[in-house]
């Protein structure tokens, strides 16, 4: 700590180089933590799917918006062996205030829906929701994103969909926590899409019954006007999020490239900084500083620059994740503390690895050789 003022002044002296190094490390921490958080979002989404739950989509259209199946299928499905319950969900993708703020609205028969999905209404009440035709329950995450409160009337852009917030809910299924639940008949009227659902949710007696029930449902509905594709909820979500999964793969490649570039960039920057200061190292050693002191100063400087960069990267990632409502609440985006710590750890590692070899070389240089160098 006794060398901290010297370290801080050195960072300030090479302002441009320090800023570039901070920027490089910040960018890499930003990408790493943002990606890790998206990964965490995916994981929580998949882990929150029901193990004994099936989704029935229109055949060939496993899309959460464009698929359509008839509600009349429900009576056929409930007669399939091992099926415990079933309900339809009509989905729409809307915008709030601007086209960038997407909101997923699910029209449900609430009594049936809460039999297949665990819903806990915190603020407000489900009674108020039931009493109002235009009532809505808002997912905890979405309410937090937009600051919606119980009693508030909200208008979305498309179809002039307006609802009154009757309650804020949480659910084991994180998909719904990022959206809005309204009465299905209300949404059907607005969308002029009565008697149909985007998909049907079916619960079966257990995970072992999923495969057989899926086959039976699809074959039972094969000759209906809209044949179906039935699969486990987890598989359906994976398909639904396939496009995002591809983005994730691309980001993974970018992540690896970013880390490599950051390490080389930081190492190069530190190496240049050390080379510029070889004479300074000689002066300090002539004053009595030991090799270990020189290492402390050079590595301390690099570590501090890396931590500043890491902090900025983390702040940027947290800001992005907080403001990223454009995914329509499909993926829960938060920066878990463990990932924040990991991000700072990565930044520190970049700084330390980048500084280690050049600092060691500088500290080992003979004092007279260091002093011989002209500025």
């Amino acid at each position, binding site marked *: 700590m006794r060398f901290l003022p010297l370290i801080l*002044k050195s960072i300030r002296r090479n302002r441009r180089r320090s800023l570039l190094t901070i920027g490089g490390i910040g960018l890499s921490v930003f990408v790493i933590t943002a990606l890790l958080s998206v990964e965490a979002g995916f994981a929580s989404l998949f882990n929150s799917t029901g193990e004994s739950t099936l989704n029935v989509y229109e055949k060939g259209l496993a899309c959460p918006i464009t698929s359509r199946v008839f509600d009349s299928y429900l009576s056929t499905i409930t007669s399939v062996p091992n099926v415990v319950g079933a309900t339809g969900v009509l989905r729409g993708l809307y915008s709030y205030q601007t086209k960038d703020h997407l909101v997923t609205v699910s029209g449900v028969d609430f009594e049936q829906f809460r039999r297949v999905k665990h819903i806990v209404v915190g603020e407000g009440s489900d009674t108020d929701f039931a009493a109002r035709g235009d009532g809505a329950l808002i997912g905890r995450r979405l309410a937090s994103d937009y600051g919606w409160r119980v009693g508030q009337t909200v208008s979305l852009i498309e179809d002039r969909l307006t609802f009154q917030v009757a309650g804020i809910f949480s659910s084991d299924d994180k998909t719904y926590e990022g959206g809005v639940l309204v009465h299905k008949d209300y949404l059907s009227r607005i969308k002029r899409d009565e008697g149909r659902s985007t998909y049907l949710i079916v619960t079966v007696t257990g995970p072992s019954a999923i495969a057989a029930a899926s086959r039976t449902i699809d074959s039972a509905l094969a000759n209906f006007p809209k044949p179906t594709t039935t699969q486990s909820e987890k598989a359906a979500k994976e398909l639904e999020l396939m496009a995002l999964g591809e983005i994730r793969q691309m980001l993974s490649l970018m992540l690896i490239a970013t880390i490599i570039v950051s390490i080389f960039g930081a190492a190069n920057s530190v190496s240049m900084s050390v080379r510029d200061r070889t004479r300074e190292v000689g002066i300090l*050693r*002539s004053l009595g500083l030991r090799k270990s002191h020189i290492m402390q100063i050079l590595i301390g400087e690099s570590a501090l620059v890396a931590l500043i960069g890491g902090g900025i990267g983390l702040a940027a990632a947290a800001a992005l994740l907080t403001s990223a409502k454009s995914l329509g609440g499909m993926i829960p985006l938060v920066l878990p503390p463990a990932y924040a710590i990991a991000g700072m750890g990565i930044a520190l590692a970049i700084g330390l690895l980048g500084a280690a070899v050049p600092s060691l070389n500088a500290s080992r240089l003979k004092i007279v050789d260091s002093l011989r160098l002209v500025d």
Partner: protein
Amino acid sequence: MDGLLSVQQVSKSYSRGEQDVSVLKDINFEVQAGDYVALMGPSGSGKTTLLNIIGGIDSPTSGRVLMEGADISQLADAELAAWRTSNVGFVFQQYNLLPVLTAVENVELPLLLLDMTKDERRRRALTALEIVGLKPRAHHYPRQMSGGEEQRTSVARALVTDPKLIIADEPTGNLDAAAASNVLDLLQTLNEKFQKTILMVTHDPGAAGRAKRTVRLNKGALVQDAGQPHGRPQ
């Protein structure tokens, strides 16, 4: 005066390819406490190398350097570093101040290695700057000072740990006549008023004339050791 420094049979050679280049050849001389010695000689005669060996920032190929009877050539790197902090103050031709630090921060640098509070460090650094007449410039950066002021700051840094020996390598080499005279006055004051032992390399006979004694080197060998017991020649 007591014996402070003893240079005994010191030789130094470098390997240049397959050839050994001898820089110092069997140098012997003594320096008493309170002495002021000028090392003179043509370029390449080995003056700076000898000074560096005495200051513990270079090592002899053979021979030894004793400071108050202790052989510094035998000290390990960390011990030698600690020895330098307490026993030697350097004044370089290029001043060698850190540009990112103010004058007082530069002077404080060696004190960071001693067990001392921040206030004590600052107090001692300001006292050293006062001795060299630069207390009003304490918070100026090297770039804001003249060459003479920079060199006086480096003298303050050299004496702040109260070392037994001050080593000055051509301290006036980069200064104009007035600034050089100022720095030489300062070194003389340190020697006469504060009893600091000074070893100075110089090309300037005028500067050497300020010393009590002149040692001449030529081609790595000591060729003359002329004492001037009354100090400054008349």
